C-alpha cells in the first residue's frame, strides 16, 4: 500500500508510556513533511492546469488519502501547531483540486455567456414581463401628467432642454459639435451601466429600489415625449431614440427584472430562509448583468455615433434599432451561438458551514 510504504518512523509499542508514545507518533508524522510538500506542489500544478499527466493524477488521489490520514492524526496529536495548520491547508488544496479541477478563465466566461445567460433569461421571463409592464405604465403616467399639466415638465427635464424644445429644436441637435462622439458614447454607456447595476442591486431593498428606478425612468421618457409632442418634435425624438433605445430600454427592464427577482426572494423566501433565497436569486439572475453591460456598450456607441448624426435617415435609424434589438434577442436566448435556451438550472444548493 502506498500509505504504508510512505509511513516512516519509529515503531511504537502499544504498552509504552502514553506521553512518550504520543511524542513518537508526532515525530513520525513530522518526518513526512517532504511528502506533504510534494503532494501540495502536485495539487497546485493541477489547479493551475500545468500538468495533464495520468500517473500524476492517480498520485494526486493517493496524496489526498495520505493528507486526510495525516490531518486526522495531527488534529489529535498536535492540535495547536503550525504543522497541523499547514496540513489542513494542503489537504484543503488537494480536496479543491481533486473535486473542481483547473481554472480556465476564457472557457468559464464563454460558458457563462453561451449557457448561463440564456438559462437566466428563461428564468427571468415572467419578471421581465412585469417590469416591462411597470415601465410602460410609468411611461404612460408621465405622458398623461405632462400632457395634462405641461408645466410639470420642469420636474423631469433641465431648463436647457425645455428652452431648446420651446425654441423649436431638440437638445440633441448639434450635440456632436459640442461633444465628440467617443466621449459622448463613453459618458452615456457608463451612466447606463451604472443605472442598470443599481436597478439590479437595489432589488435588495425588497424590490422597492428597482421599482423606483424603473418608475422614474419610465415617467421621464413619457413626460419628455409628451412635451416634445406638444411642440411637434415627437418624430425627431423618436428618430433619435430608436437606434439605441430599443436595446437600452430593454436592458433597463431586464436589469430591473433581475432586481425584481431578488426583491421577490426577500419578500417570499423559500424553505431555506431569506438569506438563502437572496443568495440563490442573486446568483441565478446576476449573470444577466454581464450581458446587459455588453449590450449597453453597443447601445452607447450607437447613441454617441449614430443617434445625434443628422446625416442618417429615419429609415436607416429604424433599421439599426431593429437590427440591434434582434441581435440582442439572439444573444440573450443563445441563438447567436447556434442553440436555444437550455432549461433553467437550479442554483447551487446551500451547505452548512
Amino acid at each position, binding site marked *: 500500500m502506498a500509505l504504508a510504504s510512505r509511513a516512516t518512523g519509529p515503531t511504537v509499542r502499544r504498552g509504552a508510556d502514553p506521553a512518550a508514545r504520543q511524542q513518537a507518533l508526532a515525530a513520525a508524522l513530522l518526518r513526512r513533511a517532504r511528502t506533504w510538500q510534494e503532494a501540495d506542489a502536485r495539487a497546485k500544478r493541477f489547479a493551475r492546469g500545468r500538468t495533464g499527466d495520468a500517473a500524476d493524477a492517480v498520485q494526486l488521489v493517493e496524496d489526498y488519502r495520505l493528507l486526510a490520514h495525516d490531518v486526522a492524526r495531527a488534529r489529535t496529536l498536535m492540535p495547536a501547531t503550525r504543522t497541523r495548520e499547514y496540513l489542513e491547508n494542503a489537504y484543503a488544496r488537494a480536496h479543491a483540486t481533486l473535486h473542481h479541477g483547473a481554472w480556465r478563465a476564457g472557457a468559464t466566461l464563454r460558458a457563462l455567456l453561451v449557457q448561463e445567460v440564456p438559462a437566466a433569461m428563461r428564468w427571468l421571463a415572467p419578471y421581465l414581463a412585469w417590469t416591462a409592464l411597470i415601465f410602460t405604465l410609468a411611461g404612460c403616467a408621465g405622458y398623461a401628467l405632462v400632457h395634462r399639466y405641461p408645466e410639470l415638465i420642469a420636474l423631469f427635464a433641465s431648463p436647457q432642454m425645455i428652452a431648446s424644445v420651446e425654441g423649436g429644436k431638440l437638445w440633441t441637435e448639434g450635440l456632436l459639435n459640442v461633444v465628440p462622439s*467617443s*466621449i459622448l458614447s463613453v459618458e452615456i454607456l457608463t451612466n447606463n451601466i451604472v443605472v442598470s447595476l443599481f436597478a439590479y442591486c437595489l432589488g435588495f431593498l425588497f424590490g422597492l429600489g428597482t421599482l423606483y428606478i424603473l418608475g422614474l425612468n419610465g415617467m421621464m421618457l413619457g413626460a419628455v415625449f409628451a412635451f416634445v409632442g406638444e411642440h411637434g418634435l415627437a418624430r425627431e425624438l423618436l428618430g433619435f431614440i430608436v437606434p439605441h433605445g430599443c436595446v437600452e430600454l430593454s436592458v433597463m427592464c431586464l436589469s430591473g427584472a433581475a432586481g425584481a427577482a431578488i426583491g421577490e426572494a426577500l419578500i417570499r423566501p423559500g424553505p431555506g430562509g431569506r438569506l438563502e433565497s437572496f443568495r440563490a436569486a442573486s446568483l441565478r439572475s446576476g449573470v444577466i448583468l454581464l450581458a446587459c453591460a455588453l449590450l449597453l456598450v453597443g447601445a452607447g456607441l450607437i447613441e454617441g455615433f449614430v443617434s445625434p448624426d443628422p446625416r442618417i435617415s429615419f429609415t436607416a435609424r429604424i433599421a439599426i434599432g431593429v437590427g440591434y434589438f434582434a441581435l440582442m434577442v439572439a444573444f440573450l436566448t443563445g441563438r447567436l451561438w447556434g442553440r436555444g435556451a437550455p432549461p433553467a438550472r437550479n442554483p447551487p444548493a446551500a451547505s452548512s458551514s
Partner: protein
Amino acid sequence: MKEPSAALSVDSVTGIDVSLAVAGPGARSFAFIIDWHIRLILALAWYVVAGVVSNAAFSLAPSPGHSQRWFTVVVIPALALYFLYHPAVELAMRGRTPGKRRVGIRVVTRTGEPPGAGALLVRNIFRLIDSLPVFYGVGLTLMVLTRDSLRCGDMAAGTLLVYEGGAADTELLHDAAQRIGRLDTAGAEIAADLLKRWSSLVPEARIRLARQLLQRYLGAEADLSEGDELQWRSRLERLARP
C-alpha cells in the same frame, strides 16, 4: 451580534472534513488596501505613459484639437484599469487578487469550492452597495456584524474569504521532528525555529525567548542563571535534543 470567528467545515469522501479558517474584517481590509494601491498605481502609470506618448512631449495636458484621441487612448483605459480591476483579476485568478494573495486569503463558496464566474461577477456588482455611503461603509458594517465577516456581495454570491496557508518550511518541520524528546510538537517547532533564526534576532530577544522556552518546559529544573548568548544557546540545544 457576531459570534466568535468561525471555520468553514466541508465534508469530504475520506470522512475527514476539510477545515478552512474564515478571514475577518482586518485581513479583508488589508487585502483591499493593497489592491486599491495596485489599481491606483496601474491607472496612474497608464495615464502618465499614454499621456506622454500621445503628446509626444513630457506634458499631461490634453493636446488641443485631439481631445477625442486623448480620451480614447489615455482616459478610458486608465479608468477601465481602476474600475474593472477587481472583477477582471478575480476572474483571471479564480477568486484571488495580488492583495488577497499577499495577505493569504482567497474567495470560496459556502461549500468550500472555488467560486464560478457568475458568483465572482455578482460579488463584484454588489460593491456598488457595499461602498455606500463612503469608504465601504455598508460593507464594513456588515462584515463586523456577521458571523463569517460577509459583505453584501458575499451574501448575494454565496461566497466568503478564507485563509490560505503558505508553503511549509519542510526543513524546519524535519528539524522539529528530530527535536521531539522533552518537548512536545509545538515546543519542538518553536525551538527549531528559534535556533534557525538565532543569528537574525537581537541578543536581548534571543535570551528572552530561550529563557521563556526553558521555563515553560523545564519549570523549576531550568538553569536560568545569567550567562552569555552562547550559554543560552547551548541550554536551548540541550533542551531540544531528543
